[in-house]
């Protein structure tokens, strides 16, 4: 599903080169639940941006469901993000002025053909994360945990190949965090492919496999189960 080969990322700022990723290779199989763990500065956010097609590597190859994403222009890349990737961010990133329902619908606006059953799909996605009764609430009237579940529903609505979560519990209290990880566990059991990026070992350990990242390189792998 995900194949990274010798991925490098170098930033050039003010004539100074900073190599953030120094040749990273790994595969994620369909249906796998994987965590990428590392301290801050290890390059894990950069790696996530590349996996999420928000950024391009400066070296190496990245295939997502057989598509070589490195050579893609802005528009096809946006299409890949839209159809194959579901993002969950640390800060939830919901539009504050619109309801949970409309937030969930947002990715469909950018899909090639706005589906006829969009409303039904949004309802279903919200129900799947336990928010059927909160559909028409605005984000600021929801708790942090609920907001993040809205974000997950939004990630699910395009039926993506992978769910990509960046510190999804980073802004939640421990109970909400635990609940949220339960949602991920459920999704995994339904056969979703999930990649969680975190610095928190207790979060990472809930995945099947943990990739350890240090100084832009893979420093180890653990299988937690």
């Amino acid at each position: 599903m995900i194949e990274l080969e010798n991925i490098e990322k170098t930033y050039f700022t003010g004539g100074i080169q900073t190599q953030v990723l120094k040749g990273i290779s790994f595969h994620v199989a369909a249906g796998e639940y994987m965590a990428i763990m590392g301290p801050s500065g290890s390059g894990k956010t950069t790696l996530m941006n590349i996996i999420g097609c928000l950024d391009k590597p400066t070296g190496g190859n990245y295939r997502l469901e057989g598509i070589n994403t490195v050579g893609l222009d802005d528009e096809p890349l946006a299409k890949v993000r839209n159809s194959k990737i579901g993002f969950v961010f640390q800060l939830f990133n919901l539009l504050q002025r619109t309801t949970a329902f409309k937030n969930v619908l947002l990715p469909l606006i950018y899909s090639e053909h706005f589906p006829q059953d969009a409303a039904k799909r949004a309802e279903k996605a919200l129900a799947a994360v336990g928010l059927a009764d909160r559909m028409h609430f605005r984000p600021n009237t929801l708790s942090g945990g609920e907001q993040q579940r809205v974000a997950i529903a939004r990630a699910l609505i395009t039926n993506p190949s992978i769910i990509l979560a960046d510190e999804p519990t980073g802004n939640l209290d421990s109970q909400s965090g635990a609940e949220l990880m339960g949602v991920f566990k459920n999704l995994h059991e339904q056969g979703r492919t999930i990649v969680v990026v975190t610095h928190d070992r207790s979060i990472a350990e809930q995945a099947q496999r943990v990739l350890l990242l240090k100084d832009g390189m893979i420093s180890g792998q653990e299988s937690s189960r």
Partner: protein
Amino acid sequence: MRGLIISLEGVHALRDRKLHTFFMMAGTVVGVAALIVIMAIGRGTERKVMKRVNNFGPRAMMLIAGGGKDLPPPDMTVTTLTLEDAEAVRAGVEGLEIVTPMAWKMYTPVKRETNQIRAVIWGVEPQWHQAYNWHTEIGEGISAEDVAALSRVCVIGKTVSEELFGGQNPVGGRIYLNKVALTVKGVLTEAGTSPGGGDFDNKVILPITTAMRRVLNVDYLGAVRIITSDASLMKQQTEQIRALISRRHHITPPEEDDFRIVSALVIAELARGISRTLYYMLLALAALSLLIGGVVMMNLLLISVNARVAEIGLRRALGASRGDIFIQFLTESLSVTLLGMLLGGLLGWAVCELLLYTAKISLILSWQQFAVALIFALLIGTFFGVQPARRAARLHPVEALR
């Protein structure tokens, strides 16, 4: 379809930020309204000017007894304008088609049997009819023979005809002016009222010789009507006539002229009220307010883009391409512009109606003015809307999400 849905996102953003939208649109509303109102006043004024000038005679000048700047009638106490002056103008200034002297007496008793009214008396030459393009409706006008023979005849205006003769045909009838009996030769066509409210048709026209020697007993003129053969020479000819008459009347500065010259140019200027320069300045000001409105809109949009970086990043992550973001923000600015155009158009129209009702300002509202104002506003809106949309589209998703 996809583009349409993305465009709607731009419209929603406006609805969600009403105050912001209001300020973005204010300049366009005021600018469009101002442009429409000013253009309407401009056209109305031009029509008024045209009407007045055509009434006066587009190629006409009047050399009038008495100094100052007033329009006719002449100053009746000034006795220095003579037939010789008229002859000197005819001989000394080139490019004049008609130079025709007029004796002039303001409201004078005119009698018929037991009826008496007061009318303006003009002593004229036959050319007067051409000079004013004012002919008889019934009967005949003043002829050269009438002037040569000091005939006791007259031509009367419509008002005089109605007051003294009622429904009867006045031709052949007899009226008395200063105890001189005059036979009515004809009746002039109706001329209406002057801008000042005077009745043009309350008039008795007689041969200038009869007027000067038999009726009024004067050796001076009230005015000389002059028609140029080329309207573009009028300004220059006015100056030539002024110089000529000043010399003939031995006027040396700082002594003031004892005559004045009113031309179609003066009439146009008076009718216009505001000068053309002022009109164009106002027009430029209105256009400037549209331009400033555009700049304000652009800046507010840029602020909005900066405030919504996270939103843009999110949209990019969810699958928006650069083009999609560009469309959304351009739609936002175009919607503001279109809404501003609509409200500005309505406001402009309302102000015009209000001015028509209350101030009786002559203005002409036409679809062309709306078209000009709206096209101008659209160009400005598009021009200033592109920059913020480009800025939004250029944001790198990674930077925007940070």
